[in-house]
């Protein structure tokens, strides 16, 4: 299996890597680039732990081939904080204790940010449906939903302020 050369932008930086044709974007991110924030839970698109932004869409990086991201823009959990300043969602996940083991957290944060970028004022129901593809087996869903609702309110306030 000949390796493929791929050039892409990840979190704003240009990367060039070689990957096997059957290698997933998740494997590339973790094993070739060293960005281990995105997690592998199921490798079948069911758990959302590997969520990343591919262009303007949140996707499961286990269901994207590394070769597919040639010329595209990928954004991962590693690009979410602005240097040392956590994103409001990250801050509020800590404040609301919206994580227990933390394995699902990067995926929830990436997916929740995609929602708030698209809809700054989601209802609780909209949040629950949007995040239905992110599984938390510590079952911390309620605190996660509260943290997202609170962040949305906070960010709307800042936008007005």
């Amino acid at each position, binding site marked *: 299996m000949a390796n493929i050369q791929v050039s892409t932008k990840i979190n704003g930086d240009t990367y060039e890597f070689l990957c096997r044709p059957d290698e*997933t974007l998740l494997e590339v991110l973790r094993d070739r680039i060293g960005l281990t924030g995105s997690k592998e839970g199921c*490798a079948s698109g069911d758990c959302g732990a590997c969520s990343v932004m591919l262009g303007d869409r949140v*996707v499961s990086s286990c269901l*994207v081939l590394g*070769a*597919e991201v040639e010329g595209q823009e990928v954004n991962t959990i590693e690009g979410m904080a602005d240097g040392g300043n956590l994103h409001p969602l990250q801050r509020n996940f800590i404040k609301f204790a919206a994580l227990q083991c933390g394995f699902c957290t990067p995926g929830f944060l990436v997916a929740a940010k995609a929602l708030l970028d698209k809809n700054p004022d989601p209802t609780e129901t909209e949040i629950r449906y949007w995040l*239905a*593809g992110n599984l938390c087996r510590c079952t911390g869903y309620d605190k996660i939903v509260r943290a997202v609702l609170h962040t949305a309110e906070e960010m709307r306030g800042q936008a007005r302020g």
Partner: protein
Amino acid sequence: MKYLAPTTIEGAVRLLSEASGSTRILAGGTDTIVQLNAEQIEPDLIVDIKRIGEIRGITNENGGFRIGAAVSCAEMTEHDGVRDLWPGCVEAAGLIGSTQVQGRATIAGNLCNGSPAADSVPAMVAAGAVVRIIGTDGSRDVAVEKIPVGPGKTSIGADEFVHSIFLPPRPERSGDAYLRFIPRTEMDIAVVGVGINLTMDASGVCTAARVALGAVAETVLLVEEAGDTLIGTHIDDAALDNLARAVSAACKPINDKRGTVEFRTRVAGVLAKRVAKIAAERARG
């Protein structure tokens, strides 16, 4: 395995016609890459069709919409024109998987995967949608219901691929709807799915109706006898009872952990009544 991403239709046709081993088309990848990861398939060649500009968009055509094979369900559900014209098809496409899956999955892929439980397929069959297939010999247009031939099997040749799916224009006073039964509220596979598309005249009498069922047979079924029960009626309670009987009679489901034969057969009739009511409401405006 080789991965190639042609940028033209001709390029894709050439790759498929010259391929010596097994090939797979890659659109959204939400079935294909799952199967690759699980080593259920080991193709010699993957042809990614997402770089072909011509099939990446939704275009208005004679009052209907042509949905390119590389258009994601999210793009489809966000498209006001498609949502207004075929709300049932859009709802069905929107039920496929999670937000993450919606950003990648395509209705063309949902059809080509060949699952009898595919959500978008009964809605498309009810809509009378037409698939454009491209191959070495040129292109052919085929009714959606002619594509699935068995679980995981389609009538699309190894040297062919889906270019687009056409959702046709529709007469005034038409409505469509799709509902599925699942034991939870999200992220599940249909135990039964029902798509109905109908048209009424100015006095509220149904003049045309197509009823399609998912997950109750080896393939998605177009049940003409079920559509006939609605034609000539005001879609009143008696007509709905006849519809439910015709739908249940057409079911040939399997028993599995998600539903028994008896359950699926009964629920198909119940769902059909609900779907017909929604479609009729939409047709009345």
